[in-house]
């Protein structure tokens, strides 16, 4: 069966998996953004906690994905939960690191003025520091998203949703003609999602960056 006729016959399944994949990534990145930005905000000012958070999230990223998914089966079982958990872990480093970098790069004259005007700690963060660090933070989120789009394919290994199912099915059937079609359609789906999300983030970054600091 040619790849074209395979697609024609299976597009509904493929679309369903693609949507699942996309949602899995978006949910994971959303959670990672909340945790990562919070960690960045809490640690960027003091050297030791900052180094600690970066080291730990850095280690997460070096764990091979198969191993991590496998390790998560024991505490979290199969399915959606371990998939999201792992993807959040992988997405943390780029987000935390860029949050810290972005906040530390804010001009000290600006933060000092904010202080001198009588802005309290949280108002300063919300109204001055985070908006100014935002272009750097959103770049971190974008990188984390692309990373997760690829790794999410492995989530099928622990019974998670997404295009990994097609890819793993294909790998299971090596030698049969359908194997190639399955693996290729899964892979193409992943690539399409990556491109779409990348473009989405480019626009999001542009529209959420205040006009006064747009390049």
């Amino acid at each position, binding site marked *: 069966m040619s790849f074209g006729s395979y697609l024609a016959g299976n597009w509904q399944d493929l679309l369903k998996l693609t949507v699942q994949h996309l949602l899995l990534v978006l949910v994971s990145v959303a959670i990672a953004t909340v945790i990562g930005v919070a960690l960045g905000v809490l640690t960027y000012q003091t050297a030791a906690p900052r180094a600690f958070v970066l080291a730990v999230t850095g280690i997460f990223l070096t764990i091979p994905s198969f191993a991590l998914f496998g390790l998560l089966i024991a505490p979290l079982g199969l399915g959606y939960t371990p998939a999201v958990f792992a993807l959040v872990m992988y997405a943390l480093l780029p987000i935390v690191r860029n949050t810290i970098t972005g906040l530390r790069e804010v*001009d000290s*004259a*600006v933060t*000092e*003025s*904010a*202080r*001198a*005007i*009588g*802005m*309290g700690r949280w*108002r300063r963060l919300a109204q*001055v520091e985070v*908006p*100014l660090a935002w272009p750097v933070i959103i770049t971190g989120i974008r990188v984390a998203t692309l990373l997760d789009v690829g790794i999410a394919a492995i989530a099928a290994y622990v019974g998670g949703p997404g295009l990994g199912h097609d890819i793993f099915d294909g790998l299971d059937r090596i030698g049969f003609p359908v194997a190639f079609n399955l693996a290729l359609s899964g892979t193409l789906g992943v690539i399409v999602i990556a491109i779409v999300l990348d473009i989405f983030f480019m626009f999001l970054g542009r529209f959420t960056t*205040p*006009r*006064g*600091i747009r390049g």
Partner: protein
Amino acid sequence: MADVSSHASTSPGEAMIRLDNLEKHYPGQARPAVATLSMEIPEGEIVILVGPSGCGKTTTLKMINRIIEPSGGRIFLQGEDVTTTNADELRRRIGYVIQQVGLFPHQTVAANVGVVPKMLGWDKRRIANRVDELLELVGLEPGRYRDRYPKELSGGQNQRVGVARALGADPPVMLMDEPFGAIDPINRARLQNEFLRLQEEIKKTIVFVTHDIDEAIKMGDRIAILSEESRIAQFDTPSNILANPADDFVENFLGAGPSVKRLTLSQVGEIELNSWPTVQAGVSGEAIGEAFRRCDDDFLLVLDGQHRPKGWLARADSGRVQSTDNPLPILSPVTSQSTLFDALNIILQSYSTAAVVVGEDGAYRGTLDLERLRALIHVEQEAQLPTAAADQQDARHRS
């Protein structure tokens, strides 16, 4: 939240700011940045902290609004001990202007200027009115600049917005750390003049840091000359300091030419101007020749139809017919806010021997020449040194 202006005002005779044995030791530093500093800053005055680099001016200034928390001593604002009160509330009563300006780059000029009123919970209309009023005050046309971002303004314009932001909720006190330090000399003089004019209107109590003694003399009602560790070497009015430096340190710091420096103390507007022979632009060569014959000066000042100075016309060899078409340029005219020091500078650069003084409308008011400045310096010196002058007179009488 209450308005800043509703805070108790200073009772008569009370200093607006009082620093009582203020100290700052930075951790890990052997010597204190500020040893023990006590001083009183009277209401409505500009007090300048001036001293060599690293002597602790910035540290001292930042302890007043507790951007830097003192290691010891007390700070009183309007008689109230604010050493340990809520720092954010204290800071809303104190405007703050720094060399790097530190405007919020992601907010418009209007949002920057309105930031303190907004924090104080003013309604939108009142904030908008206040913003326009402040922009006018610092010489920025609201309609034109309100919606711009800081990156769309020049350095000098940004600094004006910085001053407007500091004035946001009409705080009684302003702290300024080398506010004009990053501005080129010509614009700096303009901003200084504008600021002095502004101060006549707003009458704030201002603590102003600079390391430039000329700026200190020009801007200050009172100057504190600081040495290492923010020790006060002398705290007095500029003219007293120039006349009687307390010690060698102060004398050295004042540098050469105290009589020239005294020129910074007076503005052109305060003295009577000379008049200079003028001709109307466009008159005939004969009329020019006639004008030159009637005066001893080597230059005529050419005025245009609106009475604005156009340039200098130099006396030519007899017999040559002149026209007013291409006079020598004036370079830069002086206004009534310029200091006599600015005027001297311009005289020295001028093609003629005088600086041309113009009004706000650019119309010719008069001139100021070297002789006039020399005479002023002598008069002031005699006024400052009555005994010395009297001694000289005695000596002359006796001889």
